[in-house]
């Protein structure tokens, strides 16, 4: 593995499978009475979150603690950045205290690339702007493989605000790398330029996208999108793109429903679908810890000096 995990773009399919297989082993640790192994004992991991997050941050913290690392979470919104400190200076100040790894979430695409160029610590991307959220895609793949035993050859439909979603980009990269047939669907105003070049089928008809799908993945649609004149209203969005039981019925009978969270019930997904028997949304959360443990373990070794 390379020094950092900046995105799925930099991972080969072999490396992805290695992470998934390692996560299998890591999951068992969460089932023991003592949920801890000494592997990262004495290593310091800093969670540097410039954007608020409960789910991802907690998941990383638990993963770090299970590996016996010394972990520290910084919610930067309340501190130095308000005093005008740049991203680079904030990171370099943290780096001066010699952490082994820095897990970073930031609102700007490319923030982790910038930090990886200037920090010697290993950088793990926990979500940068609209760019990538690699550990999310990895835990999504883990969850899919759990249920479907494979990734290649599956039809996966991803529906929602494609333009602003880093979860979309990471998932598209990973699923196409591993040979899935990926369909993406959302309002035309929210389809990124050049989407076809990503190796996916694009459809503004969600019915077409989910037909015979093995996996349906929903993305969040935010209130703010009405400001850029992307969609007229959330109500209309639900009518055209919301994942209802009727739409789910067009997929394969055992299709699984996924969502990176947090969900807007009644906007992108109907409650009955979110809470239904084929929803694996909570499993995704549980799997997140194992996958992040795998990532932390695999990145902790490797070449010194990157």
């Amino acid at each position, binding site marked *: 593995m390379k020094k950092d995990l900046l995105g799925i773009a930099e991972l080969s399919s072999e490396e992805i499978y290695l992470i998934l297989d390692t996560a299998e082993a890591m999951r068992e640790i969460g089932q023991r009475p003592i949920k801890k192994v000494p592997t990262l004992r004495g290593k310091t991991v800093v969670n540097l979150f410039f954007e608020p997050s409960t789910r991802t941050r907690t998941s990383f913290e638990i993963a770090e603690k299970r590996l016996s690392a010394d972990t520290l979470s910084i919610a930067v919104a309340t501190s130095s950045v308000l005093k005008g400190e740049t*991203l680079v200076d904030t990171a370099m100040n943290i780096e001066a205290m010699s952490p082994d790894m820095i897990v970073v979430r*930031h609102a700007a695409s*490319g923030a982790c690339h910038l930090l990886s160029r200037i920090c010697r610590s290993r950088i793990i991307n926990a979500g940068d702007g*609209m760019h990538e959220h690699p550990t999310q895609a990895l835990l999504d793949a883990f969850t899919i493989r759990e249920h479907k035993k494979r990734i290649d050859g599956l039809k996966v439909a991803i529906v929602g605000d494609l333009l602003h979603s880093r979860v979309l*980009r990471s998932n598209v990269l990973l699923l196409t790398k591993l040979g899935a047939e990926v369909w993406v669907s959302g309002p035309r105003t929210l389809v990124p330029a050049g989407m076809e070049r990503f190796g996916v089928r694009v459809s503004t008809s969600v019915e077409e996208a989910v037909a015979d799908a093995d996996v349906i993945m929903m993305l969040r649609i935010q209130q703010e999108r009405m400001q850029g004149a992307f969609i007229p209203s959330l109500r209309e969005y639900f009518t055209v793109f919301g994942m209802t039981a009727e739409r789910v019925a067009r997929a394969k009978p055992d299709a699984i429903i996924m969502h990176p969270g947090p969900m807007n019930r009644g906007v992108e997904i109907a409650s009955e679908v979110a809470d239904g028997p084929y929803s694996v949304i909570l499993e995704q959360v549980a799997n997140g810890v194992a996958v992040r443990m795998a990532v932390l373990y695999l990145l902790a070794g490797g070449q010194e000096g990157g």
Partner: protein
Amino acid sequence: MKRLLKGGRVVDPANGRDGVLDVLIDGDRIVRVGRDLPVEADIVVVEIPSGLVVCPGLIDMHVHLREPGQEYKETVATGTAAAVAGGFTAVACMPNTHPVNDNAGVTEYILKKAAEANLARVYPIGAVSRGQDGEQLADIAELRQAGCVALSDDGRPVATALLMRRALEYAGMFKMPVIEHCEDPSLKAGGVAHEGYHASTLGLHGIPGEAESIMALRDISLAELTGGCVHIAHMSARQTLDAVRYGKTRGARVTCEVTPHHLVLTDEMLVSPIPYDTNVKMNPPLRASEDRDAMLAGLADGSVDVIATDHAPHHYDEKHVEFDRAPFGITGLETAVSLCLDRLVHAGVISLVRLVELLSVNPAKILGVAGGSLAAGAPADVTILAPDLAVTVSVARMRSKAKNTPFDGWQLRGGVAATIVGGRVVYEGVGSLLQFLPPAL
């Protein structure tokens, strides 16, 4: 002092000259250009080594000198030093300084600084609107009187069609062109890169080419309506070039310029070699290869009038941030000539003669300033090019204060041997075979 530049290839398209000729300079004027000019006793003879090219001084009509107000990025002194090192004998500087150049005081300040530096000539461009706010016209006659040669609200477009119409009409009285930064603000929105596959892979908000062409069409229509002169700055999109061709066939007085970086680079630079490199972030952005190729075709078929750098120096700290937050712009004065010689002339896109038109003849004509010609009586502004000089671009050796360029380390064929302004040698290139300074007396 009389100086004879002897035996170089003289490329002077304004006077129909391209051949091995001698150029006689007396003081700050060209006296004569001809074959085997007689050498009198009081003439210092400079043998031009074969392979070098003597042409009228190059003029960069789109430069940001940042003074007054942002001297930490660049000053008139460092900017003009960079200019002459890049082979430019004159630059036209944009008014988006702090304070904006919308009055005689700022114009005179800039000219004073230029005189102190005493390197390249500086032609200030004044603001179209007061404060560049897009509401009221600036005092254009005053600006003209103080020395401005053109008007622009560069950094942004002239805010409304009405104001642009008025500006074209009013400036037309003084024969001043309006140089327009074509961009529809609502389409540009929060965009930071060309809207396309590469920006999408990086999760960057895109700016479509139509954001530029829509505004160009507005301005070309208004030029037609008013009979005024509009010059499209830093054109980047093929749709804009189509609009310019359309305007020209209709007889509108429209001219346009392209930067060297838009002729060489594409939006693939966002991804490789350095992902999210802020040294490839500029406005208008680097576009797709179809746009770049369209610009090259426009150079060759005459639709493009000028190559200008849009030299936009920024401090290292400002660029060493997340892509979204970095200011737009890269430097250009010290890389332009090498890029043009290597990627345009040697690549067979255009001839050296055409390059001189693009970099000297046409800018002088559009701005209405002396230059672009080696006619008898013309100012002795001469650039001596070394088209076969092996150049490695080195940011460390640049005279500009700013280092924001993606070309560091590039190996190019072609460079500047010497730059002469008003008869004075203001720059001599490293490795130059010319001995301009007389032996110590």
